[in-house]
């Protein structure tokens, strides 16, 4: 069976169930790299100039880890999934860059997703991708439709059950029992919104287990994936109007929504040198400052980030949030 490798980095967290369903539908086996670790990051970082951003370095490390284990590596180029809204250059150049800096990588399966060029072209590109595996057009169509349904289900379930991508994938693939739809969190719980791109917030190594740390501290963590598309859009429109970046709703949209919905604190996680986030986090931060209702912590990580520094800032922030909460909501104590 043909093996397709998918690196556990970048867009993996948003789209993996869809990709897996598509390639399995075409009769291929899907291989995923392990979780990010020190070796993966160091190997990836060694191939590129130092100012390349952290998630891209990790991504290249994952490709290196997969190189000997599969026949193809799937790296889509997501240019645009909304009219007049485009993606960061790092996503656009990822396929070509990987091909150049990792010569030992198996052939790269590449598809350019650009909705501005029309749906016909998108369908044609999906068909061409499928042709690498089968000559049967109906099989490709079936696989593509099943993949799309999987994706919609995945998004819907994450929003309904307030689950992170890793937790939801465990439910979808490993047969773990889905938790009942999350009840509205009790007001005694501290609600922390963790905004940022899924490839950072869900990567336990890159984020220094931020999510687990927050939960261990007794917080209920809300992430952008736990919102529906409409809620994200609403948040974005309230903050800045028309979006500019493809994944802007994950930062500005989610922060905007959670600012309105009343959480106890917002933490934004950003990679050092991230181009879009340098603007988006600033926008979110200004919005939070303008409203003056919710504490906002901005964490920037790179490969030199020391865990103890991050933990100290987190503890100080949570202390401040708890004190505020006690003062403001005496009834909930």
């Amino acid at each position, binding site marked *: 069976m043909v093996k397709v490798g998918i690196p556990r980095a970048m867009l993996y967290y948003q789209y993996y169930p869809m990709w897996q369903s598509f390639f399995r539908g075409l009769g291929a086996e899907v291989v995923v790299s392990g979780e990010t670790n020190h070796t993966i990051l160091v190997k990836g970082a060694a191939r590129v100039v130092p100012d390349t951003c952290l998630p891209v370095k990790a991504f290249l490390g994952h490709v290196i880890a997969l190189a000997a284990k599969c026949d193809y590596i799937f790296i889509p180029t997501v240019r645009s999934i909304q009219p*007049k809204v485009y993606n960061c250059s790092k996503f656009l*150049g990822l396929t070509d860059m990987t091909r150049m800096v990792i010569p030992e990588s198996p052939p790269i399966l590449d598809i350019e997703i650009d909705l501005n060029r029309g749906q016909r072209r998108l369908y044609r590109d999906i068909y061409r991708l499928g042709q690498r595996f089968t000559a049967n057009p109906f099989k490709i169509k079936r696989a593509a439709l099943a993949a799309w349904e999987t994706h919609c289900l995945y998004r819907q379930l994450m929003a309904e059950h307030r689950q992170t991508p890793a937790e939801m994938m465990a439910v979808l693939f490993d047969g773990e029992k889905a938790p009942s739809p999350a009840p509205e969190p009790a007001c005694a719980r501290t609600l922390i919104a963790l905004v940022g791109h899924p490839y950072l917030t869900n990567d336990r190594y890159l984020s220094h287990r931020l999510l687990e740390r927050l939960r261990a501290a007794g917080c209920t963590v809300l992430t952008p994936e736990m919102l529906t598309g409409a809620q994200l859009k609403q948040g974005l429109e309230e903050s800045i109007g028309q979006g*500019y970046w493809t994944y802007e709703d994950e930062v500005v949209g989610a922060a905007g929504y959670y600012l309105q919905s009343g959480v106890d604190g917002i933490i934004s996680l950003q990679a050092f040198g991230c181009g879009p986030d340098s603007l988006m986090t600033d926008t979110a931060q200004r919005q939070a400052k303008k409203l003056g209702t919710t504490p906002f912590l901005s964490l920037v990580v790179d490969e030199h980030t020391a865990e103890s520094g991050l933990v100290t800032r987190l503890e100080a922030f949570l202390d401040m949030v708890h004190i505020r909460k006690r003062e403001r909501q005496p009834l909930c104590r």
Partner: protein
Amino acid sequence: MPVTMPRMGNIHIPFKALFEGLGIDYIMPPPNTQRTMTLGTKHSPEGLCIPFKMTLGNLIEALELGADKLLVPGGYGICRLGYYFKTQAQILQDIGYSFEMIPVGVSERKFLGIMEIVRRLSNNAPWAKIVSSFRFGIAKMNALDNVERKVHRVRPVEAVRGTANRIYARAVAAIDRAPDYRGLKTAVSGSLAELDGVARNEARPMVVGITGEFYVVLEPFSNLDVENELGKLGVEVRRSTFISEWMKFSLFLNPLGINEKKRVQRAAAPYLNRDIGGDGWESVGEKVLHAGKYDGIVHLAPFTCMPEIIAQNIMPHTEEQIPVLTILCDEQLAKPGMLTRLEAFVDLLERKRRVAAGTAKAN
């Protein structure tokens, strides 16, 4: 209600001509200084690129002088540039300025968009007057770039260092002052003749291509005047990015389907086969095209520039080989460090040339 706009190279001179021709009240930001940079850096998010910080500094200095209509670039599908104006507007409002921000399309409706904006600013001046002022502005831009091209050639071989720069400074001032086409023509032909007459030494200069991101290539303050420093080291610089060229193509020829960048993009295709925003695609293409023709390439990029990082990662892996020196420009870039790197680079190129000449003789 004076209009202003950020600086970039000499772009303020043609715009001055346009505004004066139409009687539009304007205030140009003072020339870039350390203060501009400090102001811009102080108020910007730290992870942003130097063009954002410098242009923000320009806007603040112009607002201090009383400007209140800000002409800024905007668009989509490029890089952070298209988003600049939204963040800059928020920053300036938070500082406490009141102003009107007018984004000029750099990705769509370029020509008609700018024409409509100019018409609005000029209180609906007749189209004939707008077109003629616009043409005069473009004539000034072409004149400036023609003189600059000549300066690039003369600077490395002038017998007395600094002669070309002095003539260039005079020429820029004369072009800026020129009231009509006749004055412009005299200014240009005078400067060109003066440059031709400069006493030269016999050296055969190294040829180095300048490529990279648009703003840092065109704004000498942001790259610490790298072209001049290379000239002092006896290096002739060639660059394909000129404002007049860019204006000519993006305003008039691209809408007609003529794409000047086709050749560069085709050259890059085996390594990078798509537009990645900014000038990343062209940087890779220029390396491929210039290999074997130039002695080396100086690649200029703002620190954290997304397209140029991709280009920088791909460039060492092309089959066509040519020495490339990447200089990252930001508020931390210092002259002594840059000079040391330039000197080492030029030494390397000279040695390469000597070795090549030696093997040629041995054969």
